[in-house]
């Protein structure tokens, strides 16, 4: 499944949903497989008990901890996937960028981990509201994040920051050297098109070749 943009705009929105759901289904499969191993280990313990072997409470505590962790992880993924699914509900609505990124970062966790990328983002940066087609907004920010993740050949930090300006919100996604990304020009062109569709723009920071800046009109701002 291709994670990057395809040459066909109509297909690309579907490809974005496909890439995300394929990646997330892999994560969910891992969650369920781990829960399956927990179940198997408990079964092993019960067989041992039937044979008169005492169970170490520390082992039980370890098993319970892993079960709780994986359940929480699975619930988080499913909730975020549900949020993405509901982006098709309205043609236009207001979205809080912090919540959009919180959702995308969970859904893109495997894509980041495969690239050894750590995304640094403060989810408390709430209140940056954008009015847009939700699918286009998620699609745009997905490609923007993925492009910057791909600026590293073997892992690194991607720093995500939201800055309120007079009429807009500036999203800064900083990684390594964006000029080094394979097919970067075509991918940036797709990002430009998507940003344009919601009245925004995207550019590589003139002072930092590793930083992609996406500027979107903010709710309450005066349209230029």
């Amino acid at each position, binding site marked *: 499944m291709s994670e990057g943009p395809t040459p066909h705009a109509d297909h690309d929105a579907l490809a974005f949903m496909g890439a995300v759901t394929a990646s997330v289904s*892999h994560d969910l499969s*891992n969650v369920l*497989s*781990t829960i399956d*191993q927990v179940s*198997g280990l408990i079964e*092993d313990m019960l067989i041992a008990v039937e044979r008169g072997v005492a169970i170490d409470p520390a082992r039980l505590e370890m098993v319970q901890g*892993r079960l709780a962790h994986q359940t929480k992880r699975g619930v988080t993924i499913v909730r975020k996937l549900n949020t993405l699914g509901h982006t098709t509900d309205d043609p236009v609505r207001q979205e809080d960028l912090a919540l959009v990124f919180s959702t995308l970062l969970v859904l893109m966790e495997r894509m980041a981990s495969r690239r050894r990328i750590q995304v640094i983002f403060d989810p408390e940066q709430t209140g940056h509201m954008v009015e847009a087609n939700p699918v286009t907004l998620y699609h745009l920010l997905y490609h923007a994040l993925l492009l910057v993740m791909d600026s590293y050949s073997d892992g690194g930090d991607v720093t995500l920051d939201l800055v309120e300006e007079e009429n807009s919100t500036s999203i800064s996604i900083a990684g390594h050297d964006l000029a080094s990304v394979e097919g970067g020009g075509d991918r940036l062109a797709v990002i430009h098109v998507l940003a344009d569709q919601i009245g925004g723009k995207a550019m590589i920071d003139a002072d930092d070749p590793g930083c992609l800046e996406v500027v979107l009109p903010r709710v309450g701002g005066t349209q230029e």
Partner: protein
Amino acid sequence: MDEDRTRVLLVDDEKDFVELLAERLAGRGLTVDTCSTGNEALERSGGGNYDAVVLDLEMPGMDGIETLKKLLAEQPELQVIFLSGRGTLKTGIEAVKEGALEFLEKPADISTLLTHIEEAKTRRIVLVEKRMQDEIADVLRRKGW
């Protein structure tokens, strides 16, 4: 180390999964080591220590198929079983074409996995013995004995 014990290396970046599976396999009499990347798998298996390597397909850095190719280039007799949550017919066929013994989809039943691990051990022993016989035959031929 008990020479008769089946030795397995589990390679998967899902820490909880790999540790739980390792504990269950160890409880069934296997000697089990774990690691989370392809590079670690190459380092660990360098000495021909394992009867089977159970490998995930998608990992940080080197992916499972690339790891398989490198493992088999270094140790042609090594037996690799894929165990992945990203199972598709295409990737399964590719893995087997590249030399994997089996491609299992998570969650896999532990008895199924054990059967394949034992099959891997038997196959590896046969291949090692064949190589040794070929080497002896080659020496005898070259020396003209």
